[in-house]
């Protein structure tokens, strides 16, 4: 996948209008300044659009009184924000040592094979899945934990992979 400059379709539809803007504004009361809403606002974008584009970065910056360059600097620090489109089901597999000791690499291989993604970081040709390896998911006693979108699934072994994927059409 190219890591180049990704833009969304024109014309740009703003995220923060109507109820979404009202939701953000309600949260202003919980913080002493607007900048503290940056991570929450980026989550709101990603929940609604699936990823964070250059245009939404500019929009978030305008809404919170920041510069686009500043917002981009923050977005790129955190691994969970997507700066390009990903598959319909984004799959994260832990491969840090504790899970590695319990066979995480085999689980990754099974996921790559059964999703058709082929390699880590790639999206399957049908746009259904993207599989990435991530560091410790905080569930090391339940090796291997896998996240599919917001779902957190414990103790995934290679044998369980086909049945797991079937739940995500």
């Amino acid at each position: 996948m190219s890591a180049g400059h990704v833009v969304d379709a024109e014309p740009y539809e703003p995220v923060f209008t109507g109820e979404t803007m009202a939701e953000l504004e309600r949260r202003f009361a919980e913080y002493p300044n607007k900048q503290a809403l940056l991570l929450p606002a980026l989550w709101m974008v990603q929940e609604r659009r699936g990823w964070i584009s250059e245009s939404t970065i500019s929009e978030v910056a305008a809404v919170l009184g920041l510069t686009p360059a500043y917002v981009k600097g923050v977005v790129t620090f955190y691994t969970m924000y997507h700066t390009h489109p990903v598959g319909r089901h984004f799959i994260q597999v832990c491969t840090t040592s504790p899970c590695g000791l319990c066979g995480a690499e085999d689980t990754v291989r099974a996921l790559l094979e059964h999703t058709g993604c082929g390699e880590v970081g790639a999206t399957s040709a049908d746009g259904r899945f993207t599989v990435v390896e991530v560091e410790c998911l905080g569930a090391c006693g339940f090796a291997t934990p896998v996240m599919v979108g917001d779902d957190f699934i414990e103790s995934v072994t290679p044998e369980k992979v086909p049945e797991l994927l079937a739940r995500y059409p």
Partner: protein
Amino acid sequence: MGFPHPSHPGETVVLSKHFGDAGARTHAGWVERGGYEGLRKALGMTPEAIIEVVKASGLRGRGGAGFPTGLKWSFMPKDDGKPHYLVCNADESEPGTFKDREIMRWTPHALIEGCAIGAFAMGVERCYIYIRGEFTEPWAVMAEAVREAYAAGTLGDNAMGSGKPIHITLHRGAGAYICGEETALMNSIEGRRGNPRIKPPFPAAAGLFAMPTTINNVETLAAVPHILVRGAEWYKSLCKGNPKSTGTKLISVCGHVQRPGNYEVMLGTPMKELLYDMCGGMRPGRTLKAVIPGGSSVPIMTAEEAESALLDYEGLIEKGSMLGSAGMIVMDDSTDMVYQIMRLARFYAHESCAQCTQCREGTAWTTRILERILSGKGKESDFDLLLDLADNMTGTTICVLSDSCAAPVVSGIRKFRGEFEAYIRRERAPVLELA
């Protein structure tokens, strides 16, 4: 209890008593189980008296450093007219550690109650609980519990009828181990990159939003209500080893044991009892090779060291390691130590925030040298190179992430040198191919 296993008689269940009991998740269910009595009691005391009880209990921070909690709370200024903040660290990202997750999933009100007590004791009107972005299920449980606590009047402008405002806001992280470091976490809440800050100033003087702030781990705060209800003497009596290590501790055990899980034991419990009686020992036909007892950031212990250690702050220092967050990574005789140490170094290289040169370069080079050894291209001089790097990575940076990368490398070379030599001398087939 050894969640997801039934409680073992060797455990002392305080924090984990209701793990697996979905009824304890609701406000009403928590009250039925004696919940919010600690907060009620605290609201009838002076803030100073609460801090004295926490001090007397001997409770120490469960996030890794083991700093005495009551003492930390006492550093907060009094009557300075500024907003004060309490931050709960629920970033739990230290490899091997998965206890805060269970506290939030099963006993969300224990954490809310602990936060509320801490808030009242330190003149805090708003507490932020920073939950790592991947913890979607704990987040959902916590969000519902906070909503219920507001609806019941336990939180709000007149918390539990005390006339005091106590508010809790959940704040979601977005994937960054470094945000577990306390000042990086504060930057993250402020909408910045998660770079640790230079100390001083310490958080109690200028922390979140430059205001006096205390930050505590989930498990630390969840223990506070029990201390208020049952008293400092009771908590202090939960001690099997050094009297400076009091109370119970959730130990997350993972890796090559028969029954991985969270076990709650009195501090000072022999590690051997935990590994063999509670966790059922190694898998059939296997023997213990090494343990990293405090989350991945502490020195590796050999089987002999682990089997003779007491599980408390002093007991593990005595055996050359640390209790840390008590995330225990167990490795049996099938383990390739060089590979595992490389994998840990790679973790730190991935997670370095890259603001300090020693860390940014040191974690990356350590990883590359270890990868080179594993690919059959190591040299005898690599030992000196790795140890020299480790030396430059220890005690030289803003936070201790870089020290954490050096710890398993130095202890690994010292204790398992032969395994490195086998790769370097081509006695062992390479397991990696360098790109």
